[in-house]
């Protein structure tokens, strides 16, 4: 979707096609249609649309998908940086956390 285009070549999403059993779960759970099924295997069709939510890797029964998940939230990243912790949603602010 053109009006939802974010930075390119940053997503940490990786798919191990060897492990993939073609169950299609990743395609089902992805909110940005990153995956497509081709010949009974998942393929990453639109990596730049990935927001690293982690739904695909969480629901992959054979652990074929890896992605470094985290909040895509500047306030969360800043507060994580200040507290010396990994970025989290617990910033108490922003529209995201309620």
């Amino acid at each position: 979707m053109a009006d939802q285009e974010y930075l390119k070549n940053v997503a940490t999403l990786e798919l191990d096609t060897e492990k993939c059993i073609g169950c299609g779960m990743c395609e089902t759970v992805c909110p940005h249609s990153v995956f497509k099924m081709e010949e009974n295997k998942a393929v990453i069709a639109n990596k730049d649309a990935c927001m690293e939510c982690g739904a695909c890797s969480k629901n992959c029964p054979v652990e074929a998908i890896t992605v470094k998940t985290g909040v895509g939230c500047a306030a969360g990243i800043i507060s994580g940086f200040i507290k010396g912790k990994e970025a989290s949603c617990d910033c108490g602010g922003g529209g995201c956390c309620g």
Partner: protein
Amino acid sequence: MTLKYIIGQVQTKAEPIPKVSSDLRFEDKLGSFKVRWGINRDSYAVEPGLYALGSPTPDSHVLVTANYKLTFDIIRNSLKGRDVWILVLDTKGVNVWCAAGKGTFGTEELVNRIAITKLSEIVNHRKVIVPQLGATGIAAHEVLKRSGFSVVYGPVRAEDLIAFLGSNLKVTQEMRKVTFSLRERIVLIPVDFVQSMRYFFLLSVVFLLFSMFSRVGFSLSGILSVGLLSVLNLFSAFFAGIVFGPILLPILPGKSFAMKGLWSGLLMLSLFSYSDYNLINMIGWMILIPSISSYLLMNFTGASTYTSMSGVKKEMRIAIPLQLVGAVIGMVLLLISRFI
């Protein structure tokens, strides 16, 4: 306190289950309105557990949701006329997607809640419908292994639930995709606006104090002229970042939110800003306003539905130093302009 959305009980093979209304009353709507403005937002929750909507039977579907009352109300209201079970997880009053990200809307909680509510005694089937955005916290294959219930991922939006239930649990491509429409962006503005106001007031106080000093020395009347104009300019910077930016998001140039915020600040500057026709003063505002609006819109990444952590980190590495330098230079120029 009596909970007015509970309108009775439904008898089951286990315990009686509270029956909820699908109608939203005035106090539900008022509650929704208030949390949108950040009032009572941290304690707007319903009791976790199983609820009946309409007159569900042991064969009726089970829909899983969060215990944020705003979410719960949208679900029951959008299922008017249907007979379903609603399984509310304890997400500490946070919506499904964010709670899934935190892990409170998760495999553990779902498996436990299925056990606590004795769901397997209440329904004949072994299937729960989980909103797709809950998938970030729930591993369907784990839930099946641990509870015997299979997870069916439903649509992203509650408004598609009726169509989903009516089509034998088929989810179309459209129902799977997250959007970020004008309407979806606008409802997020009030909370951000309210929360940003404390910083606006803080900065305003600083500017009002500075406005009393100038080349002619100390003067209280500076507050009324320069001071008030400064506050108006500051407000336009905040308005650009918090209101303008989210509304114009797709059409603002650039991909990063910081860049879009810069442009919304420049746009605001061209529409609405005051300067006392001193060139240095004018340049000061021209640098300060976009710096502030860029920072504020960069923070809207948290509310957006499509930014990744890697992306946000990348833009922050470039944007934050520039925003800081811009803010400092802008303020120094404004200060200088008062003394020449």
